[in-house]
């Protein structure tokens, strides 16, 4: 039990059938994370990072579906669970917060009620008896969570409606809803993108504190590599539905292996290096319905050779704990029988 990772994805593939063909929004994604770890999923919009989160919760909208793979949470494959059992996981074991807090909060209920609702839902589902958690104690817990996420005068704010909150406060309220049942894993989908930079720092600080105090593991989905670099233990860079590079944060940021990661880092404006111009990655994100047989990044890659388009490229271990999906690391020597899910 102690050795099983908290969450383990194996060859997760999520597809959306569209008129132009199957879109593999998530393709052969494999990673695992331990209790209390913070993983950053980084990539451009449309690269499938949000779909990974929704797949973990099994909330992919039809006709999209998880085509294959395992989602092992505490050793059990979530794909085997009944939809009722899955509902007891959502919000209680695995919570999620979103980019736009105002539209995520229900406008018809006060913030306190919404935090309370999540608590009641799962307590009731657990015990089936109302006496398990009397109202007063629940309310106390709600106030406690509101205090913890830094909502000032929580007793008064309990009866306030979402639109009466500022953006930062809304995001705090959303985090309170996610945390009230003390989940083991928090999925954060661009939680700070809609916020001011100063508020952004506060929210990240809050999330880091929660991670430290409660041992809550976090998957942070972001397009901002700099933000992920500051916040995460491990970073997985995604491109066109696949993980292209993964490793401890310092290795990935200081010694990026994959040309795409290098490109992302060059795109980032840095105050300390004002003389260095920002270098955009040429070209566009590929059409997911029509991916090349080989490396999806090849058309934009400065190092690409003809062999890159020849077929699947496995994740190649560049140093212990670091993997990168690029033929550059094997001197452009392709071997027969390589698949996207392989690791060499």
């Amino acid at each position, binding site marked *: 039990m102690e050795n099983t990772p908290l969450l383990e994805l194996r060859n997760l593939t999520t597809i959306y059938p569209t008129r132009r063909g199957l879109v593999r929004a998530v393709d052969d994604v494999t990673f695992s994370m331990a209790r209390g770890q913070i993983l950053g999923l980084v990539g451009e919009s449309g690269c499938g990072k949000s779909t990974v989160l929704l797949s973990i*919760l099994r*909330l992919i909208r039809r006709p999209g579906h998880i085509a294959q793979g395992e989602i092992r949470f*505490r050793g*059990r494959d979530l794909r085997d669970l009944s*939809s*009722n*059992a899955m*509902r*007891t*996981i*959502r*919000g*209680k*074991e695995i*919570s*999620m917060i*979103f980019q*736009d807090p105002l*539209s*995520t*909060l*229900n*406008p*018809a*209920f006060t913030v306190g009620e919404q935090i309370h*609702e*999540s608590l*009641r*839902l*799962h307590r*009731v*589902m*657990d*015990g*089936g*008896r*109302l006496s398990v958690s009397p109202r007063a104690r629940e309310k106390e817990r709600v106030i406690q969570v509101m205090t913890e996420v830094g909502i000032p005068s929580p007793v008064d704010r309990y009866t306030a409606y979402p*639109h*009466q909150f500022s953006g930062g406060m809304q995001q705090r309220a*959303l985090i309170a*809803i996610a945390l009230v049942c003390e989940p*083991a894993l928090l999925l954060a989908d661009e939680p700070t993108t809609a916020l001011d930079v100063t508020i952004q720092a506060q929210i990240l600080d809050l999330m880091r504190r929660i991670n430290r105090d409660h041992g809550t593991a976090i998957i942070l989905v972001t397009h901002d590599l700099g933000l992920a670099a500051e916040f995460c233990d491990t970073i997985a860079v995604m491109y066109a539905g696949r993980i292209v590079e993964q490793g401890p944060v310092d290795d990935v940021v200081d010694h990026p292996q994959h040309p795409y990661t290098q490109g992302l880092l060059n795109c980032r404006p840095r105050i300390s290096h004002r003389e260095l111009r920002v270098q955009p990655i040429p070209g566009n994100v590929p059409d997911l319905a029509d991916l090349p047989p080989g490396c999806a990044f090849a058309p934009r890659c400065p190092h690409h050779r003809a062999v890159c388009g020849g077929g699947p490229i496995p994740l190649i271990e560049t140093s212990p704990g670091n993997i990168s999906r690029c033929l550059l690391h094997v001197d452009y020597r392709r071997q027969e029988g390589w698949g996207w899910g392989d690791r060499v």
Partner: protein
Amino acid sequence: MEVSPQVESPIARQAYLWRIRLGLWRRNLAEFLAELRNHPLALLGGVIIILYLLAAILAPYITSYDPTRGNLRVRLQPPAWHPEGSWEYPLGTDAQGRDILTRIIYGARVSLTVGILAVGISATIGLVLGAITGYYRGRLDWAVSRFADLLLAFPYLIFAIGVMAFLGSGFTNLILALTFKGWVEFFRLVRGEMMSEKTQEYVEAARVTGLGHVSIMGREVLPNIIQSVFVLATLRMGYMIILEASLSFLGLGIPPHIPAWGSMVAAGRDYLLVAWWVSTMAGIAILILVLAINVFGEGLRDILDPRLRVE
């Protein structure tokens, strides 16, 4: 740490749900009453509606006359303020010597019952169908929507006349005729709102906290759209009352021996030149009630629509 299996007693769950609902209603009602003070017209409308309701309920205690049996010696007595009138019959008498005020008070029973039942049933059908089709879409949505379009192609009154002619007059048939088409407005409203609310992120977030589809529909989305249903219900209420009166006027609604405003107006038609009050008084009763309901409905919309709310 294992995820505990879902143990859930249905009774406890229902009790829990009702506790939430009652709490919400109590709070919303208090808020609503406080807000009503800022809308004097709506308040006035509400008071008039309550007076009509009281009159309808307490009819036998308000007047001692029999609404159906007249006194032929006092036929067509003018109202009290008329030189020939008397306070014995404040609004005069009709051709059979029946007290018009008494008949109006008893007629309120018919109008209000028909209005409330027709709107209540229509709203319930429309709400359930609209919520389900708007949420799940699919073939059922297509079928119900096309049927609704079909019904909308008929003018309401003509349609109701047709249904009544087919079913025959009577109270139950009247309600049937009015709801047969009346649910469509509610259906379209709720379906549209459900479709737009469903794309809201809070629905997705509710899924993430572990709510099921039925709970999301009933507990997350419904509170956001129920207010527009209330507003539509009040506005439709006046319309239903007029429709009932129109059908009764045409002799297709309430059987003649039961006092109803529509048939009173119809009965007074022959005496308009000699005794204008027979038709007019019943007409004014309709006018005031419908006006009060509409004003109340407008106020309700202003109060309940959060976008119009002044912070």
